[in-house]
């Protein structure tokens, strides 16, 4: 790569390049819009990238790499950080020897998510420093800055981006890459084994570190002041800054990039320097609450702007204090299951049988829309199975017998496996039926690999996780594999049989996503099994 070259990159691509130029030795994540392209692009650039079964696993692998003195990247979307929250909070205590950066790609406005949580709260709650870029150049620069910060203070750093940063393309001028670090394990039991005796001082140490980082952030060149008039001052971060800059060209700005810990002295000085100081931020009133709590008088936005994304028009309204109803957006066409999607048939059957359906996250969530309307719950990854179990356990038996769980293959691997274990262990009195829609891919996010596809992130062959074997091993009474096809009533027959049996059952409805078909042929020709045992395994498992 020519380093003086200007490139047009999406925020995701810029993060990947920033990670590569930071000498990152390992990137791990789980695909989730809008974060998915980071690892894909990192891999394309020659980075060492892997899809993990879920975000918790990804972060833990990354923590391990950073314990070993390496530089590691963990990528996920906002809800993925919920899954990875457990290791995050303790990794803040343990700290890291190498560099560790965690991406949280938030989705204000819920372009493709089940909630619009604002993950800036996670930085505060876990006690990890956070940087917020507002375009691709900053996404690149801040990724590098995040590794510097992480290695300087031996702490995981969160890079918080939003859909409009991830999926906007803007110009990036890269800088010369850094040499990779030299991983080496040094024993440090007290720092890395969080038994209470070691964790108590670790928490105290973390707070002291955060104080230091706060001082560091006070003079960080990443927080930029743009002087305009002194009538109006705007404090902003991330993409909101871009909207605000356009909405109020004459104002003065404090653009915050290190949004945890906040440089409160700098903020207070800025607020004093203008007559009216407004905090413009997307999502929760995170900045405004923190700034006010520090005793600095600033204006926030009216509650109505907490919902959805901001844009220039909305920021103009915020600045004008306009709380009149916003013009309604004409309704677009919602996405639908592809016309030839193999799961249309499954949902037709489920609909016809009038079942109570605990659903999950994936393309098949679209089964909730007409004409199927065959999904009654959808909470988070993996919840299909467990929510279904809960329903089975409290409903009167005639209703309980109609409950099924529907989950995809990638989601099953992500967090469905433990649900199946629970089903076999804490068996509901009426049994339960789980339908695993196996389309050989993570279709929703653009067809990424997962352990069940038998291929790695870069599509090279890997050991294949056999879903039906896992279910059998967990102790499920009945495990079937069927191919849902027009003209075949096998799926329906099996489903009825399982429901009537009163036993615990898993039906793997297996047929490739139609968008995958072309690629699949190519992939399977190039990906012959690696060795004898793998070949043998494939035979016995393929029914």
């Amino acid at each position, binding site marked *: 790569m020519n380093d003086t070259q200007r490139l*047009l990159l999406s925020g995701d691509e810029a993060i990947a390049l920033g990670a590569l130029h930071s000498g990152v030795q390992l990137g791990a994540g789980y695909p989730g*819009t*809008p974060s998915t392209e980071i690892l894909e692009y990192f891999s394309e650039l020659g980075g060492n990238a892997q899809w993990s079964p879920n975000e918790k696993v990804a972060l833990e692998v990354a923590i391990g790499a950073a314990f070993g003195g390496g530089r590691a990247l963990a990528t996920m979307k906002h809800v993925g950080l919920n899954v990875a929250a457990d290791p995050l909070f303790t990794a803040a205590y343990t700290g890291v020897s190498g560099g560790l950066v965690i991406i949280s790609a938030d989705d204000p406005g819920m*372009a*493709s998510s089940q909630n619009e949580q604002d993950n800036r709260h996670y930085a505060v709650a876990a006690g990890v420093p956070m940087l917020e870029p507002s*375009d691709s150049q900053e996404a690149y620069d801040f990724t590098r800055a995040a590794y510097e910060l992480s290695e300087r203070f031996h702490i995981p750093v969160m890079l918080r981006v939003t*859909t*409009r940063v991830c*999926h*906007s*393309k*803007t*110009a990036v001028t890269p800088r010369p890459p850094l040499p990779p670090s030299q991983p080496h394990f040094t024993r440090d039991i007290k720092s890395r084994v969080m038994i209470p005796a070691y964790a108590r001082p670790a928490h105290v140490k973390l707070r002291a570190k955060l104080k230091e980082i706060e001082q560091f952030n006070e003079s960080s060149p990443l927080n930029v002041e743009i002087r305009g008039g002194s009538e109006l001052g705007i404090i902003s971060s991330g*993409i909101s800054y*871009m*909207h605000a*800059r*356009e909405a109020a060209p004459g104002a003065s700005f404090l653009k915050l990039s290190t949004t945890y810990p906040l440089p409160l002295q700098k903020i207070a000085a800025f607020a004093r320097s203008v007559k009216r100081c407004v905090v413009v931020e997307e999502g929760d009133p995170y900045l405004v609450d923190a700034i006010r709590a520090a005793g600095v008088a600033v204006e926030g936005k009216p509650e109505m702007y907490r919902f959805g994304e901001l*844009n*220039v*028009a909305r920021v103009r309204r915020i600045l004008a204090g306009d709380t009149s109803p916003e*013009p309604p*957006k*004409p*309704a*677009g*066409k*919602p*996405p*639908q*299951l*592809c016309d030839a999607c193999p799961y249309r048939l499954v949902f037709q059957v489920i609909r016809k049988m009038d079942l109570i359906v605990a659903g999950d996250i994936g*393309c098949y969530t*679209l089964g909730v829309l007409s004409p199927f309307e065959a999904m009654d719950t959808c909470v988070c990854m993996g919840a299909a199975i467990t929510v279904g179990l809960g329903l089975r356990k409290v409903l009167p038996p005639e209703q309980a017998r109609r409950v099924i769980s529907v989950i995809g293959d990638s989601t099953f691997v992500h967090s469905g496996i433990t649900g199946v274990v629970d089903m076999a262990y804490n068996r509901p009195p009426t049994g339960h039926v789980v339908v695993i829609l196996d389309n050989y891919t993570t279709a*929703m*996010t*653009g067809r990424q690999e997962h352990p069940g596809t038998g291929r790695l992130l870069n599509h090279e062959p890997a050991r294949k996780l056999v879903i039906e074997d896992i279910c059998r091993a967990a102790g499920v009474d009945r495990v079937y594999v069927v191919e849902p096809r027009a003209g075949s009533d096998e799926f329906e027959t099996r489903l009825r049989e399982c429901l009537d049996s009163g036993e615990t059952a898993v039906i793997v409805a297996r047929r490739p996503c139609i*968008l995958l078909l072309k690629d699949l042929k190519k992939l399977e020709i190039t990906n012959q099994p690696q060795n004898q045992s793998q070949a043998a395994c494939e035979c016995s498992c393929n029914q």
Partner: protein
Amino acid sequence: MNAPVTSDLGVTNIVIAGLGGQGVLKASDILVDAIFPTGLEVKKSEVHGMSQRGGSVCSDIRFGRQVFSPMVPPGEADYLLVLAPDQVEVNRHLLKPDGVLIAPDSVDINRLPNKKALNVALLGRLSRYLEMIPLDNWRQALQRNFPPDLHAGNEQAFEFGRNS
């Protein structure tokens, strides 16, 4: 309320809209690729994810001497390029009153050699208005965004749109 604000930074706002699978994102990629070498600042923003499954898709492209927000404010698009007839009304509010609408009926679809290349044909049509983008930039952008076996077909579609 949404009075168009003419930017003193000479920002041109373009929105490309349609349904998932129609090539909205591809068209916007080609457009920014054609603009980028002019040296003007360009930003492109889009929302995808569920977009491949036939739902509404929309991409904003803005360029000029200085561009801040990557999103075109409603009512401020200079050009609205819509790939699906039923998405015209859904997106009309984005266009400014004297803005230019380019819709599928802007070209004679029946004479289009390959209907899949409608996105490129409409880009060709748009290119007539965007004098600051040299024709060579468009050609190169098309080539960068398609595999070699599709170059000729797309070049044809582009010319067809440009001349209709």
